[in-house]
Structure formats: C-alpha cells, structure tokens
C-alpha cells in the first residue's frame, strides 16, 4: 500500500513534493565548538550532530581558505595551497571522515596534530568542513506542464559548516588597531564598516562592541571577528537595520576585545566619529 502511494507520488510529484519540505531537511547539522586552537601535540574533539528529521551521511574534510581584504573567506583549491597551508593540511589528523547518523545523534570527531620536526614557528590553519552527502532531489514535475514541452528544474544545495582549526607553533604574538569607521550602503541595506589592521605573526580574534559615550547599552555587538595572518588590514562590514545605522552616526567608541573564553582583554579601543 505504501509502495503504491510512493509510486503515485512520483507520478504526481508536484503535489506530493510541495508538501514534502519540512522545517528540518535531511542534512541539517550542528557543530560545536566553532573554533579550534591547538598548540603542541594535544588533540581535541568536535561534536557533529544530525539535527534533521531523517538519517543523513556526513562527510568531514579539510579545506584551505584565505581571508580577503573585505573579510570574506576565499576557497582555495588544494592544488594551489601555499607551503604553510599544505603543512596545515598535512599535520592535522582527524577521524572519522564519514559518518551516518540517525536524527539527534551526535558524533565526536577526534582531531590530532603532528607537528613535523623543524617546522618554522607560525600559525598554521585549515578549515574543517562538515556537510551532508545529499540524496539527489527529483525534478519537480508540474502536472500543468504540457507533455514534451517545458523544463522543470531541481537544484539540490550541498550545504555545510566550516570551522577554523588553528595550529600555533612557537611563541607568537599579534595586535590590532581600529581604523576609520563609517556607515555605508551595501546592495542589501546599510552596514557599519571599519578598518582593522593587524601586526604580528598570528591571527587576532575577538568581539566588537560599539558604544556611545554616556550610553550604557552598546549600539552594536559583533562576536567572533578575526584577522588572519594572510591579511594585514581588513574591512569589517556589519549589516545593520536602518534605525541602528542612523544611531551609529556621530561619536562612538569601538572596542575590540579578546574572546570571553580567554579573559576578554581589550585588544584595541578607539574613539571615532562615524561618517
């Protein structure tokens, strides 16, 4: 009976598939923590959880990404990785690389690091990608479509999460300076922008708080802003609602502080007049 229904469904796919998408599609996922720093030979664990409604197979892999001056992360083909990126891919070991999970089933991914002898001090980084291997969706057939005419289209997203895996070798230090700040328009609406300049031999990472002198409540909070070693200067562009954009203009204090997990010390603090 069920089989028959399935067959019927295929014939009248448009009707059935329009009701098919649920709040949680197969392949939805949770990853924790969201950033890994390894120094020395001690490894760590990352949890992957299937938060979809159906069993799904996930693949775990390492990717090379480079930060752009605009703060984006460009995906770099493994063949074009530079020596440091290659070294990161080679020294980070992890397992399992493929796992099938029923709904709400977490899986621990163990991450280890083998620092080769004589490796130059510095920060080595790869990005761990977690994503579901999708079942190809059938193209939606529209019963209204005249036979032999027209095209129907099925686009299946292969979606996943990446988190940075950072390996620090040697005694490294870095600091950052906040530059000019302005409110500008992007194609998606207003954004609060400022320059962040980094010096030193590792990345900087932390939270941004924008406050108005004399007002306790911050105008804007943004957590997890990094400047990676491959860029010396990046623009931080944060989309904000129009009313927040209007409030941000004028004198503000911008504070860039270390992650709360490591104490939340101020990296840089600057008074700026936002244009």
């Amino acid at each position, binding site marked *: 009976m069920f089989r028959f229904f399935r067959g019927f469904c295929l014939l009248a796919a448009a009707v059935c598939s*329009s009701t098919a*998408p649920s709040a*949680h*599609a197969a*392949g*939805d*996922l*949770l*990853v*924790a*923590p*969201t*950033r890994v720093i390894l120094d020395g030979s001690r490894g760590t664990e990352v*949890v992957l*959880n299937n*938060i979809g409604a159906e069993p799904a197979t996930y693949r775990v892999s390492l990717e090379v990404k480079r*930060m752009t001056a605009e*703060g*984006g*992360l460009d*995906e770099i083909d493994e063949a074009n990785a530079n020596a440091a990126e290659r070294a990161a891919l080679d020294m980070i070991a992890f397992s399992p690389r493929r796992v099938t999970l029923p709904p*709400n089933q*977490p899986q621990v991914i163990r991450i280890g690091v083998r620092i080769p002898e004589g490796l130059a001090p510095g920060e080595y980084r790869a990005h761990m*990608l977690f994503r579901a291997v*999708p079942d*190809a969706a059938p*193209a*939606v*057939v*529209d019963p*209204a*479509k*005249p036979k*032999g*005419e*027209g*095209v*129907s*289209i*099925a*686009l*299946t*997203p*292969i*979606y*996943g*999460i*990446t*988190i*940075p895996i950072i390996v620090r070798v040697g005694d490294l230090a870095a600091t950052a300076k906040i530059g000019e700040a302005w409110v500008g328009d992007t194609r*998606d609406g207003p954004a609060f922008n400022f320059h962040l300049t980094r010096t030193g031999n590792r990345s900087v990472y932390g939270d941004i708080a924008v406050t108005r002198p004399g007002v306790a409540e911050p105008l804007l*909070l*943004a*957590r*997890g802003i*990094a400047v990676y070693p491959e860029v010396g200067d990046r623009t931080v562009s*944060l*989309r904000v609602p129009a009313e927040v954009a209007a409030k941000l203009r004028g004198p503000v204090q911008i504070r860039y502080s270390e992650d*709360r*997990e490591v104490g939340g010390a101020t990296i840089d603090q600057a008074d700026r007049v936002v244009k």
Partner: protein
Amino acid sequence: MRTIGMKRALIGAAIAALAMNAPAAHAATATGTAKAKILRQITLSNTSDLQFATVISGATASTVAVSTAGGVTCGTGLTCTGTTTAANFDITGTNGAVVVVGGDANVTLNGSLGGTMNSTLSYSATNVTLGATGGSFQVGGTLSVGANQTAGDYSGTFNVTANYQ
C-alpha cells in the same frame, strides 16, 4: 554513591542539551558548571529550496531570475508557471556571532533528455550577524534558458557553507 549518580545525571543532561539542540546549549559563554562544559555551537538548516518551477522555452534564448526574496522575473519569450522560491538557510549560534556565507557563484544543470543549462546564484548576504534567535540567508538565481531548450527534468547541485572565522 549518590554523588556519582548526581555527576552522571549532570553529564547526561549536558549531552542531552547538546544532542537535542535545547536552549541551554545556546548559552553564549562556555563557562559550564563544574561537571559539564557547554560548547559554543552552530547549526545550519535548509528550510526551502531554490525553485524555478516550470519554464517553457521560446524561439530565442532568455533568462528566468528568482530573487533572494523569491520573486520571479520571467524573460521575454518564456512562459513560467508554478510557484518559485529562493533557497533559505537558517543559522543558529552564539548571539552576536558573525558568520561568513560562502557558496558557488553558478551551477550547471543537466537535463534528463540531454542538454544543459546554467544558472548564476546570488546570495542575500556575505555575512550574517546572529541575533537571539539566530539568522538566515537566502539564495536566488538567474537561469539561462537556450532557444528551444530541450524539454526535460534538469537537475544540479550547488555548494553553500556557513563559515566561522
């Protein structure tokens, strides 16, 4: 004996919180109790697909565009039927966290009866600052339909990632 039982219960609760994506696991800081460490997490869910619906090609090449809001612009000479939607992805995680959105700029679709089509993809945001209830981004696209495009069911896949920096 009782303490051990208590410990186990706490660890169990922490695992359950993580496993079930309960609100407790959304706690912004990683300062757990003495018995359980709450990890920062990110979730990504696909809640709608990019649908161009059905397109009947014309004598000249044209395009069908689905905006990131889901609206359709049917090019001259084409007939578009059905409901179009943009792909939607929901992200949850630490309140205030900035997530970088990445993905393919275009996708090739292969027809069941031969023929290919290309679509460019557009993203509603390059980065998303998560609020208390998370955030979302949408993917739209512009499909290039050839003159008298071979009929059939076209399918393709594209990559989308939510990246922590």
